[in-house]
């Protein structure tokens, strides 16, 4: 994987396999991130697909200021916020749909995060507020720098520093209540 730039360029030059590669490489991470915003697996999956659809239809120009992933996640986040605004009154899910969502979420965690320690941490983050979840996810699981996170979340670097600081305190207290110690916090 070469950070997606060459795949995207190939796609813009007419090679559809470039987009297929991008989907293969980024779909799980993007889905996981969007799940942190929407808290609904199927909505996150829809938005993830729509993010790639935007690339196919609009063919936006990639800015090399940040990594391809940062750029893609920014598009995804905007799509998620649009979707949440549109669907502020969402229909209730049935018990079966909820169970299916939970199973899908667990499968995603297993396939993407792999390590048990990371999965436990991700689960603990579920109870945090959406901004905290997002910054911690991008920082811990996607290894993005504060500048990249700031670009994705449309916040200043300073705000991100504060957010991460607070999110860590919040997460740490939650983990401690449950008897966990996470040395990176």
């Amino acid at each position, binding site marked *: 994987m070469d950070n997606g730039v060459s795949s995207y360029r190939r796609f813009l030059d007419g090679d559809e396999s470039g987009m297929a590669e991008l989907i293969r490489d980024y779909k799980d991470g993007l889905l996981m991130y969007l799940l942190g915003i929407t808290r609904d697996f199927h909505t996150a999956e829809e938005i993830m697909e729509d993010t790639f659809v935007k690339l196919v239809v609009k063919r936006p120009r990639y800015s090399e200021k940040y990594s391809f992933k940062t750029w893609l996640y920014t598009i995804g986040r905007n799509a998620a916020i649009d979707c949440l605004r549109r669907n502020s009154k969402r229909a209730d899910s049935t018990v079966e749909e909820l169970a299916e969502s939970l199973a899908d979420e667990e499968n995603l965690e297993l396939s993407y995060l792999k390590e048990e320690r990371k999965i436990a941490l991700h689960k603990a983050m579920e109870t945090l507020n959406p*901004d905290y979840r997002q910054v911690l996810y991008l920082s811990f699981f996607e290894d993005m720098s504060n500048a990249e996170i700031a670009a994705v979340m449309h916040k200043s670097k*300073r705000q991100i520093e504060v957010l991460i600081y607070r999110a860590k305190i919040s997460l740490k207290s939650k983990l401690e209540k449950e008897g966990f110690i996470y040395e990176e916090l």
Partner: protein
Amino acid sequence: MKNYEEVTKNVFRKSEELIARNQRRRNTIMTIGMSACCLAAVCGVGAIAWNRARVSTVPAETTAPAAQLVSDDYANAPGAGDTVVSENSAVSGDAVVVQHPPIMNPDETPIDYITTVSGFEVEDFDTVKIAPDNGQIHISKALQAAMDKYGAVDENGNEVIYRVVIAHLQNRQTIPATEELWEQECARLKGQTVYGLGFETYSCDWGVHSEHWIHADFTKSKIESFTADPNYGYVIDLYDNYHGYPITDPNDPNHVCFSHEPICSNNSADHENIHHEDDHGNQITNTNNESVHHEENHGTQVTNPNNESVHHNNHHG
């Protein structure tokens, strides 16, 4: 959970559908546009033909200049009513609009533009501030830098307005901005405010919780002469710079208190109710508006290369 092949298939299927839909829309718009153009062309040709027919009915000795004659003749023709005149005056109507005096204040004085500074980027941000003692005031570096740059008076001779957020502390601990505190400060600061002291309630995280800010519009001199209530410490920062920084207690380096919790930013939060008190003490309430403090003054935001937020607002007298 969909696998990679399914997602790829879906993405390309949805894209094709979207492209086809966009194409259909474009075609429809083109069709409507072309029809409108055709209709306009037909009308134009008709109007020219009608005018020529009118000119041809005028006696030969009065045909020069033809267009002028038609116009004058038509307006002055016996039986030509107001309707005809007003239709005919469409061209002169434009001239009237051009000759209109510029929009004025209700008291007929020309509108001045005032400069409002609400954000200023400095390299050395004091992300972690020193918590002021009761009765003390801490002015942020960004606000100080903005005041140094923009000064007290703008190029129009009007006092520059600095839109600030006021955080209150007690015994170096931040205290939440409540409506009671705001009312109390309103009464105390009444003489110090220029355009008002605001209290805002934000709905954060899509309504999960809310938080409050107290903000004010001050001139430079009012900031410099701001007096503190001896019961509170104050942190004053620019409105758009203020995002709830941690504030440290210098006597306890391990202790950090927050200016407010939880954090919430303008672009991710929907403002629920925004109350603003004007200089006459009247409260203006605006709902669901992200940039109320700008629109209230009919302002337009100008961002300069330093990423500062400077607002040039219409000041109604």
